[in-house]
């Protein structure tokens, strides 16, 4: 800054080395970085949505079925509820973290995991049902995009479940260390973000697909 | 210093190509982009010149300024006054933003917008606006295979010619283009700009030339091993010559039905520059092909087809296609 260059400086007053620099706040840095990851994950989903958007014209389904013929919005609604409740359970778990209740955190995560497993189980069942009626990704570009978007999301949920399992172990083993708490916060962001993505998928792929 | 001296010699070398450039413009040209012979290519050339003139004015002055600063403010030479605090000037900053903004605004209006419509491949106003047809426009259906071109003339008994395009002068020619297998690019540097040719899709382009001659056509986008050989001569001839030529082709006993086309579309490198003609091709071949490709029809490439070109050509010969 030119002004600071021009200003006269009193050598006795000037601060050249900082005493109070304690490095950085581990949790806040970790959380910021995880926000950045969420941003890139959002771009990943955005690209998949773009692909789905381009490949959801009627001719994209070639001669195969369109979503209206095979999606089951009510069935998927149960999935939605499972995921939402899972996020809610994780929220309770995080509330317990604030009070430092180990049991509360663990119970919350277990509930969240069970509901997540329900979600993945329902998803696998749905995929098997669709495959059994001949709705496979090889049929048409539209179905390829349908599977890519929904199953990439399911893969994210699966990774989240493994993460929860690891966190359960770490909580029991180490308690609430800085690392563990930071990871729990990141996992919360991850889980909520996947739920948000699911809302978009549910609306644009299942509901919209059912109606069009 | 030795390296400095070397550099100054290189500057002299730089003049030689410029001489060649001027020389090249005068005679039969190898500078295809600078010697447009088609209406569209000429328009593109004109827009290019406007753009280069405007940009060269800015870039050239900047380059000269930088060189001048380098000379004037070299340390130890005391040619200019040093001011180590000078880092801001409102007037200059306004100019620094203003000059490019004005230039870009001008180019957007004069070149980008006008040009995009003038040479829009689907409806080039430069051709359609001034259409003074001395005959009806000619329609040519272009099919790119791996790696040949097939030009079908629906108005002329559905005749076709492969790897050679013949069009009459002073007449708009409208192309519909598609490809059998992969994406490539239709390009005649002196006549018309590039347009992608894609399988299962139809693109369009248009051409009008008032200069008789033979011009090189190129498959401008990489489309596999035979890309370099996927050439076609474009002959711009007088209408009378064109009619005469068309009569000759129409009477050719060689015809092409869809089965024959299927065979034609198999991967083939046109090393011998063959230009077979077909007096008649099956009606609706172009649309039929489009639908077939959209239904997943493929002309797959044999594995390692061109790992050895001699084997590849031998294979072609054994199939009696060479």
């Amino acid at each position, binding site marked *: 800054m030119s002004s600071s260059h021009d200003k006269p400086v009193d050598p006795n007053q000037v601060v050249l080395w900082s005493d109070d620099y304690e490095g950085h706040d581990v949790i806040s840095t970790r959380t910021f970085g995880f926000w950045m990851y969420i941003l890139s994950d959002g771009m990943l989903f955005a690209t998949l949505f773009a692909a789905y958007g381009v490949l959801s014209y009627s001719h994209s389904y070639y001669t195969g079925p369109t979503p209206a013929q095979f999606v089951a919005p009510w069935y998927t609604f149960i999935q939605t509820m499972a995921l939402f409740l899972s996020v809610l359970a994780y929220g309770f778990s995080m509330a317990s973290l604030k009070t430092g209740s180990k049991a509360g955190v663990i119970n919350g995560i277990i509930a969240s995991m069970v509901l997540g497993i329900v979600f993945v189980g329902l998803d696998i069942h749905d995929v098997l049902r669709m495959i059994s009626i001949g709705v496979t990704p090889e049929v048409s570009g539209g179905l390829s995009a349908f599977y890519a978007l929904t199953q990439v999301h399911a893969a994210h949920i699966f990774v989240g479940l493994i993460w929860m399992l690891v966190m359960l172990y770490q909580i029991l083993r180490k308690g609430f260390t800085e690392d563990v708490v930071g990871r729990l916060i990141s996992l919360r962001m991850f889980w909520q973000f996947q739920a948000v993505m699911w809302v978009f998928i549910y609306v644009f792929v299942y509901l919209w697909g059912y109606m069009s | 210093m030795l390296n400095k001296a070397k550099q100054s010699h290189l500057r002299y070398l730089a003049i030689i190509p410029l001489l060649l450039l001027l020389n090249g413009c005068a005679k039969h040209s190898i500078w295809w982009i600078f010697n447009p012979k088609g209406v569209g290519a000429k328009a593109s050339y004109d827009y290019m010149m406007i753009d280069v003139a405007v940009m060269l004015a800015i870039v050239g002055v900047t380059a000269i300024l*930088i060189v001048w600063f380098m000379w004037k403010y070299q340390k130890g030479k005391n040619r200019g006054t040093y001011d180590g605090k000078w880092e801001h000037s409102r007037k200059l900053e306004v100019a620094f933003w203003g000059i490019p903004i004005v230039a870009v605004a001008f180019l*957007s209006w004069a070149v980008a917008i006008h040009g995009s419509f003038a040479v829009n491949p689907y409806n080039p106003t430069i051709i359609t606006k001034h259409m003074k047809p001395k005959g009806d426009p000619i329609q040519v259906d272009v099919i790119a295979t791996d790696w040949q071109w097939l030009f079908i003339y629906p108005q002329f008994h559905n005749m076709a010619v492969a790897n050679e395009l013949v069009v009459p002068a002073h007449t708009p020619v409208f192309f519909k283009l598609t490809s059998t297998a992969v994406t490539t690019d239709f390009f005649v540097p002196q006549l018309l700009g590039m347009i992608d040719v894609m399988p299962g899709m139809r693109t369009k382009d248009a051409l009008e030339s008032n200069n008789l001659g033979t011009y090189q056509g190129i498959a401008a986008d990489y489309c596999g091993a035979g890309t370099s050989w996927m050439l076609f001569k474009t002959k711009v001839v007088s209408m009378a010559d064109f009619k005469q030529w068309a009569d000759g082709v129409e009477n050719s006993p060689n015809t092409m039905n869809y089965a024959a086309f299927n065979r034609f579309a198999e991967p083939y490198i046109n090393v011998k520059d063959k230009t077979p003609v077909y007096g008649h091709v099956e009606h609706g071949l172009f649309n039929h092909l489009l639908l077939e490709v959209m239904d997943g029809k493929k002309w797959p490439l044999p594995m390692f087809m061109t790992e050895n070109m001699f084997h590849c050509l031998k294979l072609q010969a054994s199939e009696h296609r060479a």
Partner: protein
Amino acid sequence: MLVNVPGPWSPLLGRLALSEIPYTNPILAPLFVVIVLAGIALVAAITYYGKWGYLWKEWFTTVDHKKLGVMYIILGLVMLFRGFIDGLMMRTQQMLAVGPGDNGMKAMGAIHGYLTPFHFGQVYSAHGLIMILLAATPLLVGIMNIIVPLQIGARDMAYPYLNALGLWITAAAVFLIMISLFVGDFSHNGWFGYAPIFELAYSPGVGVDYWIWTLELVALGTTLGSINFLATVVKMRAPGMTWSRLPIFTWSAVSANIIALTSFPCLQVALALVGADRYLGTHFFTAGFGGNLMLYTNLFWLWGHPEVYFVILPAFGMISEIIPAFSEKPIFGYTAMVLATFAIAGVSWIVWLHHFFTMGMGPYVSTEFSIATMLVGIPTGVKVFNWAATMYKGRLTFSAAMLWAIGALFLLLIGGLTGMMLSIPAVNYMVHNSVFVVAHFHMMLLCIVYAVFGAVIFWFPKVFGFKLHEAWGKIMFWLFSAGTFLVFFPMFMLGFMGETRRLDWPFDPHWAVWFDVQEIGIAVYVLSVLAFLWMIYVSIRDRAHHRVGADAWGTSRSLEWLTDSPVPFYNYAMVPHINARDEAAWRREHGFSESRPDHFAAIHMPNNTGVAVYIGALTFVIGFGLTWRIWWLTVAALILTVLIMIYRSGKGDPGYVISAEEMEKLDRQSRQNMSDGQQHLPKGGGYTGGTVTAYSAAASDQRPQGTPPGNSRPLS
């Protein structure tokens, strides 16, 4: 679900077979022998001198951002050379092949030149991919890695372990593309790939698979890096380092990494979908069955254009550091520079369509993207003007670094001029897919290379404590520039002659003379490579004569020049308090340049770890397994990777603490090192142990808590 592949497949080896190794190829087979022999010699030499432990402890397992940066740069330079050899092969092929008639080498199976179309395609595809993603990107990431933490007064990156992970995943990508030379083929569809030619039916070999997984790995590595950079700059700035005092290079790193973070996922998705088409039989980009091949082109360039600015913006940042230092003036128009940087970054997202104007999307869309593209010219113009104004009223020293920076400026002017031509659809139709475009983007990428060479010369003394040989640096510059002129001026001319790109057989004999000139240019480039190697050799040999202090150039401006050269592993003994935008210049002007901290505090440093190396190696195995469809190997490596990650997460890294007394000793030592005329290679921090970090100091090391490791040599 997995589609059948043409050719044999076995559960154990996938598509791999002895016949996939091109041992009969007269180019690759000898090259393979040479590389194997060189590799054996290298391994033998390291073993003989007993350096494995040193390499492992000090380099492979390091999490020190400077060492990781150095390794990134070495990786980038090696790949720059590999890419150059590809370029040499392409030039030679076109020179030999040009014109009519059969002039080919029968032994190679070519009817024109010495390469068949199949091999020529692989060469240029590898050239493009390597130069952009495995040479330019690692070079820039490496320099950012070294300089950004120093410029903001941080001890390291925000996530040192993630930093190492990014390096080793990038290295895995490098190994994958290098092994494609000798096992199987590489893609022949150009570095960006075309739909639908990369579909299995039209590219039945493994080349495209190599291409997919190389790109996926490097994309992963770069994304991790970009998260790290952003967190570092946002969270780790020293006190007083406000946003308005951030050095321009750091600003450009911020903008570049925002671009990388948001754009690389598009690439990952685009390529994953190509992979799905090839492996699972989906129809994303097929011509039939409702696929959309234009979607691929859009998705790819949706990443591709931001990527272009991801590599050019740091280069602009480097120019913005070098020119003020050798003009002895602050950068002109700091705020305008920052705004221009972000304007370029912002516009990068809305221009991707100009890579395929010829697809025929109609005049309205074309015009929009044309004008958006031209908008880039405004902030870029501002930058060039500002650099010129920085030189105005300056005191210019034409050191080697300054020459490279000014050279970059001129290349940028030519690239800008031709870029403005290409941005106009009417003009673009005539020169798109011609070598004119190739020449244009080489101007821009060489602008980056020039900036990188300038930056390497400029910051080399900061990292290693001695300057590179100035005269040889200048000789290299002039040779390189002569090569650039001789190769790319003819290329522009060939573009005006209508030569399209990627011709393994340039059919027009009129082009021959220009190819000959280009070949001469390539020869001059070879000389410049030799000059570079000689410069490195001479500099290391005479390093005692080129020792520098903290402020290596005497006119440096930004914060990194405050700390000692070579930079100690902890960067700053005491974190500096920032008082001005150009802190080093400010301290010099006010007589504080000799000031050192009078007291010290304990600091906390991260431990070294071998985990990143293992995960890097495993990602290579995953990529290789996927390429050859060796499913058991892929799955095993994937599971192992996850397990290692979980294991590492359980271990954590508490780091270690260096006490205040120890810091004082280290600081005194570092100062002595600078003035004793001896060369001291940068020493590492961090304990290294066995498999995973031996984070417990006492367990792995008998040294007392606080002894800086890596200093096993006596501190003399």
